[in-house]
């Protein structure tokens, strides 16, 4: 693997482009030539607009209500919201949609007063939820790919376009610092309950790093699977890594016959060892922990198949199921959902285990009682959604809709009666 990366690095050099300046000049000239006529259109347009505005103004002399730029109004005041429970979940209704577009990551602050989002253009935004007129503020001009919020302090950990480094930003002081250089571009990170930043780096060597073992540095996982594994998750409490590996050559997109391993990374030893033997499993490349870190949730493909279309080999999966793995009891439960092709899934902490899954333009919210193995369908939303998150005060649910925008939903005092 080392050799591969070294070779890739050496192959990156290319000969310079001799005509770069010439092409640049042509590009700028093309813009300039057209600008003349565009200016003509603009002037004509402005003149026409002025005439129209004057004509309309004669009839409608009504001043515009000033609004804050980019702010969005919640349809229901936040102070009318109640805590979301399994009993009132069916009464949940939309409060506001944040036109983020292409949101890749979001998280509530620990006080539930701010929603931190990262959008497709990799801008990090802070949405102030203290008023019903929600206004975003860009918290960094660096491209941001992923975020985590500190549980006690106004601090955000984030990855930028230099994804081999993790940064911390203090929302109150504005202090922005690089916390750690990592050996890979593929990283997951969380703050544990004590506010310790824990990072898993899924590179050539799988390593973990945290504030508590800063003096030791990067700790390498012992006996990590030798094969490539992008199927991994870091538990929210920063205690475990679950890692999957494809063993079968007949794997297809998103699916492989493989094994699933669990590492306890909580001990500040120099090389965390796996907990028990790996679990043989037909797994998908989607695996996550529940918010309490006690269960692993994974999407499985039940019917992998490969089809030919013209000259292309298409790989597909027609049927999925959701499996919940109880780490303590080594017990597995399958959700009895009728969803066949599950697109996305997530977990939120409304009750013991609440799993959301999307398929066929709908999203199902399930509660799972691992003691009995019983699953209950709590509610179905008539839209596909992913990456659910429950605010720490339990009053807001946010999710990413099929347009990539963030929607915030809640249950009001009126509807809960």
């Amino acid at each position, binding site marked *: *693997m080392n*050799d*591969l*990366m*070294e*070779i*890739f690095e*050496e*192959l*990156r*050099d*290319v*000969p310079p*482009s*001799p*005509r*770069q300046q010439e*092409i*640049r000049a*042509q*590009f*700028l000239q*093309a*813009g*300039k030539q*057209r*600008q003349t006529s*565009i200016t003509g259109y603009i002037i004509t347009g402005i003149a026409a607009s002025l005439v129209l505005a004057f004509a309309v103004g004669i009839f409608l002399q009504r001043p515009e209500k000033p609004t804050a730029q980019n702010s969005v109004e919640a349809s229901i005041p936040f102070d009318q919201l109640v805590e979301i429970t399994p009993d009132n979940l069916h009464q949940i209704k939309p409060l506001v949609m944040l036109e983020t*577009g*292409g949101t*890749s990551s979001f998280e509530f602050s620990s006080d539930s007063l701010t929603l931190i989002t990262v959008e*497709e*253009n*990799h*801008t990090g935004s802070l949405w102030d939820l203290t008023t019903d007129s929600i206004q975003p503020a860009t918290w960094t*001009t660096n491209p941001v*790919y992923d975020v985590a919020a500190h549980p006690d302090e106004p601090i955000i950990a984030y990855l930028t*376009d230099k*994804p081999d480094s993790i940064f911390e930003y203090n929302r109150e002081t504005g202090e922005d610092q690089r916390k750690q250089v990592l050996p890979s*571009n*593929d990283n997951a990170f969380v703050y544990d309950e004590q506010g310790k930043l824990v990072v898993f780096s899924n590179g050539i060597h799988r390593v973990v790093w945290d504030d508590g073992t800063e003096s030791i540095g990067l700790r390498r996982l012992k006996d990590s699977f030798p*094969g*490539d*594994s*992008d199927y991994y998750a870091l538990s929210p409490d920063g205690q475990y890594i679950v890692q999957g590996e*494809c063993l079968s050559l007949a*794997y297809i*997109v*998103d699916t492989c016959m493989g094994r699933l391993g669990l590492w306890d990374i909580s001990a500040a030893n120099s090389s965390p060892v796996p907990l028990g033997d790996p679990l043989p499993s037909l797994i998908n*490349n*989607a695996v996550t922990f529940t918010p309490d870190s006690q269960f692993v949730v994974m999407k499985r493909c039940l019917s992998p198949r490969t089809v030919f279309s013209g000259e292309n*080999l298409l790989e597909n999966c027609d049927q999925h199921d959701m499996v919940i793995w109880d780490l303590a009891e080594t017990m597995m439960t399958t959700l009895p959902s009728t969803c066949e092709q599950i697109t996305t899934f997530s977990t939120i902490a409304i009750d013991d285990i609440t799993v959301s899954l999307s398929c066929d333009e709908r999203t199902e919210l399930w509660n799972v009682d691992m003691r009995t193995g019983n699953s209950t369908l709590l509610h179905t939303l008539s839209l596909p959604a992913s990456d659910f998150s429950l605010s720490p005060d339990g009053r807001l649910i946010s999710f990413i809709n099929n347009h990539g925008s963030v929607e915030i939903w809640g249950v009001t005092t009126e509807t809960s009666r």
Partner: protein
Amino acid sequence: MENRLLQRAKRLEKGALAEIFDTYYPRLYRYLYYQLEDITQAEDFASQVFQKLIQHFQQGHGPDRNLQAWLFQVARNLIIDNSRRNAYRHHQSLGENLVFPSDLEATVQQSLLAQRIQGLLVELSEHQREVIILRFLMEMSLAETADTLQMTVNAVKAHQSRALTTLREKLKEEIHS
């Protein structure tokens, strides 16, 4: 920030256009060179991509965000169109054109191994080759690669995983043989 730059570029402000060119041309040229192996052709294609961008701006269209993905997608389409038109390459997949500069090999210490990698890349599927090029030669993030190839991050990860596994296995086979 990119949004503001694009807004200015759509008004055809020279400063914004220059900033866009200076930011993205080198990356685009590198990508095209990896794909086409030919300096002149890479420059021609890069020039065409930027001309298309100007045309879109002039018509009031063009990307509202994620300019890089837009530029790379246009470049990919040009390459695909070109390979379809080219009789010699008609029966070749896109990735079979992936050859690295011959003079580069003399400058690297692991030139033999590098040559093997070049040979092995052609054995990967089209998507796998593109993911390897974007991730490890263009040094794009998973998200950027997904945007460029118009696939999900998970799909990129899957292709990357399989491509690296294949490359590693092939290398092992060669070393053992």
